[in-house]
């Protein structure tokens, strides 16, 4: 059940909105001015939908829209701005402040319901997209960590295993299949051939004529 923030200083409209939202399957957080709306938006798990009156005491609706758009945690919040201002310039100013939609009072309840349905769908998609981006960032972090696990010498192409021993690729692969036997041969090979001990990044073994530590074998 999606939660809707209702911010309006008109007690009649607040009650009507609360009643309709409930009958349409939404839960509502209802406040009577911009300051209280700001406070509600700063709580953990803020509502994904907001119906905000333009003209309110204190912080007005367009200020709230600007705050929402400037706050990354509220990126998925879908805002419907309510107003009695009918001028075209007001509509433009309201949308430019960051509102996703704009409804002029008095409005049809069925129209509001339809617009909320759109807002609900878009906010849900935004939330799913944000969750997917988080997953991808997490996966990217894992890839970076995994790539650090396979240092390959750029010169001799050996791979350093988790125990800091350099191995031929074939040995490394065999080692992953039969860990105990491969590990034994890898240990002796690395001790004998590889002088380069701790590359800081993957696949970076300094070139042979460098003065830095290097893999001395071919």
């Amino acid at each position, binding site marked *: 059940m999606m939660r809707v923030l209702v911010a309006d200083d008109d*007690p*009649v*409209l607040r009650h009507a909105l609360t*009643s*309709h939202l409930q009958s349409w399957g939404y839960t509502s957080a209802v406040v009577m001015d911009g300051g209280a709306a700001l406070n509600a938006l700063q709580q953990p798990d803020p509502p994904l939908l907001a119906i905000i009156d333009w003209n309110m005491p204190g912080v007005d609706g367009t200020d709230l829209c600007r705050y929402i758009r400037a706050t990354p945690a509220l990126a998925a919040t879908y805002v419907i701005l309510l107003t*009695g201002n009918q001028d075209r310039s007001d509509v433009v100013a309201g949308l430019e402040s960051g509102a996703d939609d704009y409804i002029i009072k008095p409005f049809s309840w069925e129209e509001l319901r339809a617009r909320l349905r759109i807002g609900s769908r878009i906010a849900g998609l935004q939330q799913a997209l944000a969750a997917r981006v988080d997953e991808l960032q997490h996966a990217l972090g894992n890839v970076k960590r995994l790539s650090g696990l396979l240092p390959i010498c750029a010169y001799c192409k050996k791979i350093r295993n988790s125990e800091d021993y350099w191995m031929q690729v074939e040995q490394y692969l065999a080692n992953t299949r039969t860990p105990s036997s491969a590990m034994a041969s890898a240990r002796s090979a690395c001790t004998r051939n590889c002088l380069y001990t701790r590359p800081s990044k993957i696949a970076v073994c300094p070139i042979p004529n460098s003065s830095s530590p290097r893999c001395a074998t071919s």
Partner: protein
Amino acid sequence: MLPSATVPDRVNNWTSADLAERLGGNRTLAHELIAIFLLEYPSLLQSIRASADRQDREAISRSAHAMKGTLANFIDSGPTVTARALERAAADARLADVPALVEQLEGEIQALAAVMRRQTGAR
């Protein structure tokens, strides 16, 4: 208060059934909204009167805007139109028009409130 002859017919003919229809047939909600309006409008009117007495343009405009918004939940003519005219007069600095508009608005609202009380039995 204006004599009933000067109150628009739309006010005298206003019905709670029309309001309920606008609310999707919800008569209970209609009566709840009327009760809230009857409770709230006196302080809104008082705020308009006080700001008009002070000739405070911003306060007149702000309180007339709030009254217009509340009235628009019930009726789109009569007092709603007058409240809009009052808001505009204050915004345009036509303070000479304010007293008459306040008087007209008060009369229309009192008439609407009387109709509401009569139809719902509210006090």
